[in-house]
């Protein structure tokens, strides 16, 4: 079978053979070039039949200010709009309340620190955890793979500081442990043991509180911290089956 095929290929008069191949490649290249040109010329990014709300400049703007790629920004936007289409179609700058986010975003739904995340990233005046699209993009950017570790550490500290006083003290740690391990898993003695071990390891000036410096000193050595706070290494999750690739 292979012999027959090779027969046919080589027995063609050599020049016709060469011409065919050459013309095929040229046509293919021209097609590719045309498509490429069309992409560059379009100022508005059009995907999947949907008109986008971003101009090229806005996209570049987001790209300059965050650690996301353009594809990720567009995907994030799609997910954001899908959360509450009625509100967000009209006004992209609208904010969504924390309860809505906690219910609908799968990454936040199961996260024990979801409410803290909303609060920390929220830029609203009332400080109730509502996020607008900019805040959402900010959150995705911090949780992306290219964000530097120091940035993640900074935000982690803010999240774990439950009473917002720039220190992690015993109350914060107790809250942290109970959220992380589930309500009924560890008994009181274990929790106290654990907290004392933590202070043994991290508290350098022995005042039963962790400052940002001590926290950073400990976390920056953690090998898995970066991987675990990386929601986007595989790209922001696409939506349901109906949406094709961007």
């Amino acid at each position, binding site marked *: 079978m292979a012999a027959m095929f090779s027969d046919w290929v080589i027995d063609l008069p050599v020049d016709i053979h060469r011409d065919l191949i050459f013309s095929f490649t040229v046509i293919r290249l021209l097609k590719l070039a045309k498509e490429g040109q069309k992409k560059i010329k379009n100022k508005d990014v059009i995907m999947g039949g949907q008109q986008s709300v971003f101009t090229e400049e806005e996209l570049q703007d987001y790209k300059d200010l*965050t650690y996301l790629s353009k594809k990720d920004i567009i995907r994030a936007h799609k997910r954001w709009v899908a959360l509450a289409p009625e509100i967000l179609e009209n006004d992209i700058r609208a904010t969504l309340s924390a309860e809505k986010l906690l219910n609908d975003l799968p990454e936040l739904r199961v996260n024990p620190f979801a409410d803290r995340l909303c609060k920390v990233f929220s830029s609203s005046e009332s400080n109730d955890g509502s996020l607008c699209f900019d805040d959402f993009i900010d959150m995705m950017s911090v949780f992306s793979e290219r964000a530097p570790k120091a940035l993640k550490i900074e935000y982690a500290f803010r999240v774990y500081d439950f009473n917002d006083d720039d220190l992690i003290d015993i109350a914060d740690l107790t809250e942290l442990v109970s959220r992380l391990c589930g309500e009924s898993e560890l008994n009181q003695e274990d929790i106290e043991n654990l907290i004392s071990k933590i202070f043994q390891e991290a508290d350098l000036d022995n005042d039963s509180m962790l400052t940002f410096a001590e926290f950073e000193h400990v976390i920056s050595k953690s090998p898995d911290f970066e991987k675990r706070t990386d929601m986007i290494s595989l790209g922001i999750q696409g939506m349901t089956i109906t949406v094709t690739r961007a």
Partner: protein
Amino acid sequence: MSSSVHPRRSGKRQKSTESHQEMIDIETPRSSVPGSVTHDDDILLSKPTSRHTNLHTGHQSSIMARMPSQQAIQSAPGANLTRKDCHRRWVRSSRSGFQSIPNDEREDQIEDVEDEDYSHEHHEHRAKLIKQYASNMKRKREEYQKLQKATALKYGNQGHRDRKQKGIWQSVKQGFHENFSFSLWRSHLKEVEGQFGNGVLSYFIFLRWLFYLNLMLGLMWFGFLCVPEILLAHRNVVSFDYATFNISQSIANTTTGASIYCSPDYIANTTSTTHLFIVIISGKGQMECSQLFYGNYTADVVHTPNIPIYYSMPFVYFVVTLVHFILSLVLVARSASNAYQKSYIEGGSSVHQFCNKLFGGWDYCICEQKAAELKMKSIAHDMKVDLAEEIRAIESKLRNKKEKCTIYLKRILVNLIILGILSAAGAAIYYAAKETIDSQTTSASSAFLQLLRNYTASLTISGLNIILPPIFSILILYENYSPNFEVQLTLLRTVFLKLASIIFLLASLFTVTRNAASGGSDTILCWETYVGQELFKLVVVNFFVVVFATILVEFPQRFIADRIRSQTICCIPIYPPEFQIPKNVLDLVYAQVLCWLGAFYCPMVPLMIVVSLVVIFYVKKISLVYNNHPSQRPYRTSKSNSFFMLLLIISYFLAAIPVGYGWANLTPSKQCGPYRSQSTVIDAITIIVKKNLPTIAWDILSFIFSAGFIIPLILIMRIITAFVAFTLQLPPIDIIITILAVTIANY
């Protein structure tokens, strides 16, 4: 102070002590926290304010704030705009070289430098800093626009042009990345990550990496060897180029068809089996003289009359193998050093183990409720285990002499038993391989029995690999180690088992080559093809074992575990299946070793491994999603990753050294293959290269590969790598370089 993100923090905390009460009065405005940005230009000149102060008096706090240590604390990257001072110094030193500037001129220097400051690098630098600000988008946007305006003002057109030029190359690169970045199996991996977290994901990512590696290698082998072979197969081979090797025409014995490539004796002896399935599975008969095995490739330089094609098969074969090994080494070493760096150098010791587990413990990638609950349980379990282990460590220090003796005795005993088991396994493999060799020249009563005899070695190896590891994990219970260490030690022993089985197989194959040289009626005619067949069979058996072990064991296990509530059947506990990451990764590494070892003798092995990896991916993923529960024991991804990469490197050398040895010392068989007529492969290549290069080039080449050059080279490389390792604080990789150099110099 201008508006800030959060209202002024006035630490409302209920602390009883007097000293802390005073601290509350110190207003630490949130806006002065590093990372938040204000519009106040005074910030540029003001002293850095204290953050997170836990001092006792207000007076002390302002003094402490000026201390260098406090300033160091606040310099989170990209935070204070006072970084401009540092930048000024940097710019000055880089522009003025290392000349010393008299003091009075320094002020002027600063102003000049400042005017030229908004170069492209400076813009990039500031833009990067702005990205790193830990504050919300609005502020970042305002800062960025300020930066744009300032740059445009100061620099005007020239800077813009400069930036545009650089921008074109950057945008081309970015465009490439955005449009063509294709991530294979992304949705599957995302699903796995969401349900099972990071550890299991690392297994699938490793699988995908191996897939890319093998695809590259397989396409290379296919394209350079099989395709020319197919296209030029039936042409009239003008074999006058056989004179390359100065041998007589009788060996070539050219006629049409496949018999060009294996001599007629060989063909007659091997195409006797007729049953198609047996032919395919065991690689004998028709398959033996196909592109699958080494024996098929010709020594001729194919030169057809119509279209002038000159294709030196022996040379290409050698070069492709060389590229195969060197490329693999480079990629594996790079990946291994990354993993090693991440885990050991950045990871630090177990000093902070509790903090790491608590603060870095939650896996933000999880998206499912069930998985989240399980993750919480596993973290709690892990904490309890660690606390218990601390207690256990204290207890073990307090053991008295008698207990210690007993435990050590038990451990020595178990180790001896395991050594005995391993040697018995090795002997079994050796004899099984001998049986297979015998089956080549004698034949049993039925075709099926003959097939079994053929497969004895492979089946023995796979059987031992299945049976022994559970025995290891039972034996280790007597040794009284901590649970984490138990897992690691069992893994290590399983690794020894797998590597030892390959070594014993190679030993038996070595005796084959010895025998082949001596001649006689009961020797194998083409030992390279035989070696290729053995490895081919191993690959096939390994693939089927992995796939069927997954399907036939895990589905029933889950079925039963769901039905039986009490979880025991006749006192054997039945748990729902868990995905055991180390065992599966070990399977992948084993398959990869077979690929490296087998590629020279059976060029299609990389492509076979590619196909098997694809099938294994889907089988494992489906079984994982339908059957498995995430394991209770949490998995330390980075340390394990570095261990498996180290394992990959060791296995690489295990594969590369026998092949290299075979090139240098073993005689190729006289009846088949590209190197029929030569004494060693290396000799053949030397002859070809010598013939085709100009004399000067050959002289230089032979000098480079002689001992007089290599040894000084090794010394210089050691010095360089030690220096580099010292400055960059990376692990020295001179071991790899030394071994490579010694291998080259040794032939």
